[in-house]
């Protein structure tokens, strides 16, 4: 057994053990450690008395304060809803036109709609509703299903080609892939469609394209897009005469669209967002375009 030695620096003796040169001082535990240990234990015991804490066989100690995270959450939600009621009731009960005419209400729509839009819609439609490849711009006048608020609200509710029972359904056929039109006819139709929108020719077009394609268009495209190509909001068929292109307006993009067809997808928001939130989004989205102009 080793002999305890006195450490000259501290004046304490070692425990008398030594491991490869390491020794330990036989110094009492500092009082402050006991103090803090006692303090944290007392804090814990008090906390256990106040709050739900220890499991019993079939239940647990509920704590004298009667706090429970589920009921306090429900209570907080109730209070928050009551605080918002002053304006939410107005949004819920008044019609779109009345709300749009009310400046103070629209200010609330702009403030509360922005995070709602950015959290739910911006992933596809862009932070400012500017759209992106395959996703419509929301700040222009081109509305696939119509621009009135009730229609926009319905689109948000059921989605497009979504899994909702009442979903809007819209599909453009794959004219090339499915062999309905040959390559030359598609190229002519591309030229024709681009001319409808007033796009500048690129020089690749055949000279008699437009005449040849008019017939093809009438036979294949007009059923949905209309004889003059102005689209049909009943079917969600885009207006081809404006400058808005969901999948791009250059010759290659339009060719791809006609060749492969399109079946855009928008999820439905009923069940995920409340009726109030969807109404706010409707107003917010329409306001995006309105304030832009």
């Amino acid at each position, binding site marked *: *057994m*080793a*002999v305890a030695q006195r*450490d000259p*620096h*501290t004046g304490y003796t*070692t*425990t008398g*053990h*030594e*491991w*490869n*040169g*390491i*020794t*330990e*001082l*036989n*110094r*009492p*535990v*500092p009082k402050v*450690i006991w103090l*803090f*240990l006692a303090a*944290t*234990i007392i*804090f*814990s015991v008090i*906390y*256990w008395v106040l*709050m*739900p*804490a*220890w*499991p019993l066989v079939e239940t*647990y*100690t509920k*704590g004298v304060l009667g*706090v*429970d*995270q*589920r009921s306090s959450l429900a209570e907080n939600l109730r209070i*928050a809803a009551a*605080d*918002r009621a002053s*304006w939410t009731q107005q949004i819920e009960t008044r019609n779109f036109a009345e709300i749009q005419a009310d400046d103070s209400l629209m200010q*609330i729509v702009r*403030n*509360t709609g*922005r*995070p*709602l*839009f*950015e*959290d739910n819609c*911006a992933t596809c439609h862009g*932070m400012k509703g500017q759209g992106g490849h395959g996703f419509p711009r929301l700040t222009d006048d081109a509305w696939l299903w119509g621009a009135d608020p009730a229609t926009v609200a319905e689109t948000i509710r059921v989605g497009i080609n979504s899994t909702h029972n009442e979903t809007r359904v819209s599909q453009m056929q794959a004219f090339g892939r499915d062999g309905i039109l040959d390559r030359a006819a598609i190229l002519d139709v591309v030229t024709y469609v681009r001319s409808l929108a007033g796009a500048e020719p690129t020089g690749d077009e055949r000279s008699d394209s437009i005449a040849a394609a008019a017939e093809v268009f009438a036979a294949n495209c007009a059923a949905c897009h209309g004889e003059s190509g102005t689209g049909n909001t009943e079917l969600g068929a885009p207006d081809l005469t404006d400058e808005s292109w969901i999948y791009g307006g250059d010759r290659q993009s339009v060719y791809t669209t006609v060749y492969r067809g399109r079946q855009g997808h928008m999820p439905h928001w009923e069940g995920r967002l409340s009726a109030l939130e969807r109404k706010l989004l409707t107003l917010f989205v329409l306001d995006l375009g309105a304030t832009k102009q």
Partner: protein
Amino acid sequence: MVAGLTKGERQFAIVISVVLALCGLFLAGAGHQRPLGVHGLLIAFLGIATVFVVLSGYIAPEPSEERLSSYYDDPSKAGIIIAMIWAIFAMFIGDWVAWLLAYPEMTFDAAWASFGRLRPVHTTGVIFGFGGNALIATSFHVMQRTCRARMPDQLSPWFVLLGYNLFCILAVSGYFIGVTQSKEYAEPEWYADIWLVIVWVTYFVLYLRTLARRQEPHIYVANWYYLAFILVVAVLHIVNNLAVPVSLGHAKSYSAFSGVQDAMTQWWYGHNAVAFFLTAGFLGMLYYYLPKRAERPIFSYRLSIISFWGITFLYMWAGSHHLHYTALPHWVQTLGMTFSVMLLVPSWASAGNALLTLNGAWHRVRDDATLRFMMVAAVFYGISTFEGSFLAIRPVNSLSHYTDWTVGHVHAGALGWVAFITFGSIYAVVPILWKRERMYSARLVEVHFWLALAGTLIYVFAMWNSGIIQGLMWRTYTESGTLAYSFIDSLVAMHPYYVARAIGGLLFLIGAAIGFYNIWMTVRTAREEPLEPVADRPIASDTPAGAVQPGE
């Protein structure tokens, strides 16, 4: 390596390798054209390669009996080098992931390079690859010295070290090809988990056998911590990974737990992985290398006792603080919170015991970057345990949870505490293991120290800022009573901090690379004369326990 094994051990090594290769071939066949098949082939290849390595050294003469009068350090040497390789690899991935968060397009549209796969590569690589190998290597070194006994055989330490690295390789390669059971820090699938159990039990038994051979009457504190680390990690690993494989031919398995029980089991595991892997094991390192380097007695033996039992008892309850405000019953959250608060005292007692041990040696801390690494480690241990107890308080947690504050907290512990104590210990042990007078370059240790400290501080401050900003943005309401910010607003606000974090991580990585170079050059540089400290050898095993030691 093979020359150090006896004939019997070489034969046994071949048997183990052949069995391993056969298991690999079975998995390769059963999991043909699936990720499991890839792993089967990998296991078979490594098994066969080991057979060849052992055979190539098979006819070498047996090690002499003289070996028994020295410590067996070859596995420790290999472990240190492997740990540093893992450090460079996994810290590189970590910094990549950090840049990826700032610039998400850096995934290059490749599945293997997506955040969800790279992140576990980083965490497994640093925790298990770097930390685990460093723990194994130093524990072999420390247990032999503090027991004054050589390890009982030469094969089992190699089995533990190499087997453990096979587990790490299976884990990390699995993430790249999509194998994961989606449990944080327990991602590897069932076959890797089973293998780790075998390796880990061998480790535990090896430790106990060495302790049983000890020539010291008492067991030193470092051994308490190493042993707690090995024992509890085994328990945690087995329970949390209880799962049923889809079939023997599939990597996929389903957990034995479901719903909130699964979450609770996972965070009981997860938090105690922090406690017993990242704390207890490294406290073992601290308790040996710090007093050794400082040449000071431990401040208080009694304080060691309080800290050890406080930490081991209280940590076990704290895991539920990871699940505040969730489906977990309120009472479980209360217990997790209060035990976390009580845990602060023994944690600070440990940190204080380490720092006060330096009293009388602060001039060494000033002059010796190796000791300074250990000092800073103790400081960060204190900081991050305080922060941990603080974040475990429910109302605080409601702000910090799911934010970068958590990430900052973890890295204050992982970089400031775990990596610092590891680097300090490695710089202390490398000259001893390779019998050099000192490291190749003390200046490079100094450079590594400042790079690591700067990197850690930049990282932690960036995450504190971004975490608190995030938490506040997520709970800011407009006058109308709705959320003022969208999630993406908070992402935009995070961007500068993410860049700062990635720069901090880069500094830390460069420091580790310099450290690796320094270690490599220390090993490579021939010593001028053999340095054999007289005291650094075990007591012959025929001496009865408790015999008077030389020099006493």
